[in-house]
């Protein structure tokens, strides 16, 4: 299950959004126990990250603080000031109450433990 995004598991946000947002860079790893998702959210303070799991859709929103603070003149611009939105469809049930999220150095790390029913089982041969 160590995979990058395939169309069946991940759905980018396309509808119902009017403001300009961009999809952050992200990476998904998984094993028999949990999904681990890393999302790059540079410029987003902890208080501006919103996580939401509804049905099997995980939504990550990161509001970026402005890159040109008040009273400053931009001389050269390459960084995008747009905020981030990532929407992923999970293809296995996860234990919501055991989800953990950590934001460190502009990278959000999510751990979504799989529900028992989704874990692989060994069936003994009698």
């Amino acid at each position: 299950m160590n995979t990058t995004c395939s169309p069946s598991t991940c759905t980018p946000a396309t509808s119902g959004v009017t403001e300009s947002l961009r999809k952050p860079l992200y990476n998904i790893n998984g094993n028999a126990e949990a999904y681990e998702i890393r999302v790059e959210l540079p410029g987003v303070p902890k208080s501006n990250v919103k996580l939401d799991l509804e049905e099997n859709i995980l939504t990550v929103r990161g509001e970026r603080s402005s890159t040109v603070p008040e009273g400053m003149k931009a001389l050269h611009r390459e960084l995008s000031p747009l905020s981030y939105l990532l929407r992923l469809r999970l293809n296995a049930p996860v234990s919501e109450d055991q989800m953990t999220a950590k934001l460190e150095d502009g990278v959000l790390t999510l751990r979504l433990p799989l529900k028992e029913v989704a874990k692989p089982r060994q069936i003994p041969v009698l």
Partner: protein
Amino acid sequence: MKIIRTHPFSINRVSGLDEWFRHPLAGLPSLSSFINNLGEVLPGVTGDKLAVDVNEDKDSYFVTFEVPGVKKEDVKIELNNGLLTVSAEKREKDGEKESSYSLTRSVSVPDGVNAEGIAAKLEDGILTVTLPKQERSKPRTIALS
């Protein structure tokens, strides 16, 4: 043999044309593009390029880089002959495997910067280098004696 990744004219994430429409003048007084293109030819300045913003207010210049996932101790900032070079080593853990790659960018610093006062801050994956401007000598009137 050394493999050098090159990116002719860095177009980082944002389409270059879009950027041009929004800021058609941004490329003209470019502090960095010449130096950066040079950097791709020179050995020792390899690695992917960091995107950069340069802002100023009346007291300082602010050079901003996006370095998500980079730790403070993995950032190197150098000022040499009026050229500010930032290198960031990015380490990624993927299970047991750990990989790292480096990102570099050089920006030529305008005249009149107080080199002693340069400071840097890393917060939420954004590195900001502050370059204070030197006190300009104020116009004076000289009284005739």
